[in-house]
């Protein structure tokens, strides 16, 4: 019985720890679906995590903290969109420089807040639902941030697949000329989705410093942004798959601390590195030619796998679109 609850507890904490990755992944998915790559994710998550914590600490209000974080994320994303659309600069170049800038800014401005205990998002079990066997303690014994992450995934999927606006989003990312021919203002929507994506990324930063790994320290979020970018590719730019990637990655991260006591002879660093190794392997599988890989798989399983492995990026990603 106690092993059971240990297992459930582990799953619960893995899900909780993955919440920031969900927000960042979904946010970036929206942005990239519209055609804007926000390569600054790692830096902006750091900066918004710091901003969120700092503002929440100084003001005493969690809402203000999250708001500040979202503002920071949105601002950085806007800058990338502006640089690429209005100034015709390379999205990757500007994003990369911003990663470094935001990371250093976060260390510098956040220095007074290092290792200070601060506010955290309160635990909020949902009465009634908590008592459902197995699923209850895993899903409903969490905090508000976690519940919001679930809603975000579902909301993003509904938006993208069930609304006219979502249809337009998919169109502008895949073939901007066709969207334009149908009267859609491509660049305006690109700005919009970049900013919304950035706000979600900002939210993810605050979720990290106020819910998952409380407080602030130098390089607090540890490569989270890069992983978020990778899971967007892994997830085939599709919300549910991106969420799956986020949980898988969270699992790998926790696997280190879970397996360590069982296998003491395996050095910790190997387990730490495993997620990144997995990232590369997965990317090779997803980016490579699926038909070539499927050659090795029994015929009957092929159609099923082909659907899962399909991972083509939005055709217009990163491309400049001249309107008018």
């Amino acid at each position, binding site marked *: 019985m106690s092993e059971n609850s240990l297992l459930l507890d582990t799953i619960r904490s893995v899900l909780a720890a993955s919440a920031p990755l969900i927000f960042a992944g979904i946010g970036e998915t929206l942005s990239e679906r519209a055609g804007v790559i926000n390569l600054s994710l790692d830096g902006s998550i750091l900066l918004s995590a710091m901003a969120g914590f700092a503002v929440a600490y100084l003001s005493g209000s969690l809402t203000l903290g999250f708001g500040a974080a979202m503002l920071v994320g949105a601002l950085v994303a806007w800058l990338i969109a502006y640089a690429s659309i209005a100034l015709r600069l390379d999205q990757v170049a500007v994003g990369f420089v911003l990663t470094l800038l935001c990371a250093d800014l976060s260390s510098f401005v956040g220095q007074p807040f290092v290792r200070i205990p601060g506010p955290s998002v309160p635990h909020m079990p949902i009465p009634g639902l908590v008592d459902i066997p197995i699923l209850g303690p895993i899903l409903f014994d969490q905090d508000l941030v976690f519940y919001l992450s679930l809603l975000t995934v579902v909301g993003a999927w509904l938006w993208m697949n*069930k609304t*006219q606006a979502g*249809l337009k989003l*998919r169109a502008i990312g*895949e073939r901007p000329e*066709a969207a334009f*021919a149908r009267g859609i203002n491509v660049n305006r929507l690109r700005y919009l989705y970049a900013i919304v994506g950035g706000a979600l990324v900002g939210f993810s930063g605050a979720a990290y410093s106020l819910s998952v790994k409380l407080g602030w320290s130098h390089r607090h979020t540890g490569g989270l942004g890069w992983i978020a970018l990778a899971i967007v590719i892994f997830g085939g730019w599709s919300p549910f798959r991106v969420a799956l990637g986020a949980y898988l990655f969270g699992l790998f991260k926790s696997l280190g601390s879970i397996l360590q006591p069982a296998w003491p002879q395996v050095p910790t660093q190997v387990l730490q590195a495993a997620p990144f190794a997995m990232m590369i392997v997965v990317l090779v599988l997803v980016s490579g030619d699926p038909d070539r890989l499927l050659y090795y798989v029994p015929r009957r399983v092929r159609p099923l796998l082909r659907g899962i492995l399909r991972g083509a990026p*939005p055709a217009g990603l990163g491309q400049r679109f001249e309107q008018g």
Partner: protein
Amino acid sequence: MNIQLTDIVKSFGMLRANDGISLSVAAGTIHGLLGENGAGKTTLMKVLSGYQPCDSGTIRVDDREVSFDSPEEAIAAGIGMLHQDPMDVPALSVLDNFALGHDRRLVLSRHRSQSDLARLCRRFGFELDPDALVGSLTVGERQQLEMVRLLALGVRTIILDEPTTGISAPQKVLLFETLRGLAAEGLSLIFVSHKLDDVEQLCSRATVLRDGRVAGEVLAPFDTDELVSLMFGQCLSEVGRSDIAPGEPMLEVADVSVRTHRLEITNINLAVRAGEVVGLAGLEGSGQGILMQTCAGLLRAHKGRIRLGGQDMSRSSYHQYLQAGVAHVPAARLEEGMVGGLTIREHVALAHQPTGLMVRWSEAEGNARERIDTYRVVGRPETPVASLSGGNQQRLLLALLPEHLKLLILEHPTRGLDIESTRWVWNRLHARRRHGTGLLYTSTDLDELVAHSDRIVVFSGGRMSAPVPAEDITCEELGYLIGGKGYDA
């Protein structure tokens, strides 16, 4: 609805694509618009459908003057255009493409869109799977979807741009039935085509454009001779080919089929002999480009063999073809032929067989100067190739070719060139001929094809006609062939 275009003028820089064109289309009719490539048909229709503003002239819809700033406005006024390459989103499904812009409410009602789509498809006998990705549809099916989409938006005039290119025979029959049905309901249809057969079958009235102007307007029943002479005018076949006996077969294409996502060419058989010039005629996108790319190693045939000087090159790579003495000069000069951003000198350095690690710039400079002189390129060694004019870029492309080639393949070698440059280019090409190089080229200029080729083949819808000796054909007859008449389509 009645459409009236009066004195439409549209220029692109120096080129007057539409030079005062007037056209009237009555409701309930199918009106044909004929003309060669570059006659001005597409430009005119883009003006009418709101894709481009005209420089001057008026458009009247049901006697009311209108002007459009965007395709959206044209559709709102009831005019829709079915492009040869429809502006759809291949990665999205049929239903999604249909619903994009159609279902105006926030939450998509899949059920409603699906029933609308099904209703329209049933009416015309189209069979479209709502969940299939548009990218997997055939050209004919994409056309059907686009038509259905336009009708759902309530257009009363549909412009069809080369609709029978690349669709199957049963799809064509279905299309014609659909169009006749629509006309019977009072819609006005404009049928833009170069295929004389189709126009003669379908249209009640036809306008022929040539060189940006209206060459004539005729009523059904049509006289084919009249149509051809209106389309192509009088040609002055200036015979430039010399009478050199061609040598041994250099290139042998045997039963070749090549598949691209756009088009498939099937069972092509062709031989080009040393010193021979073979011209590929036909409307763009009919397969000539694909064959030429295959003969240069840029595409691979999935069926058949390609032999160069007796050696089987079917599995060879592009670089192997280069080494074997084949060169391919593309029409997209800056996108595929040269590196914009590099200078003439740098291109010459790259073309010269590199011996050693470091570039000998003085040598490259001298070499570049020499070639600039010989090929009369207006530019200096340090000129970036991107700033050369089209004609000079073409000269440079020729200048960069190796001295001795077995086979020279050219895509539209004189496109965009003035008369003097054209004459000069052909001079150089015939000089190569005399050295034993076989030439394979495409052109949309019938005079050029008749004047410089030894033999001509005509492409249409991925099929190739039997080769015809150029001395046995006139421009008019060539026009017929291109118009799809007189050979097994």
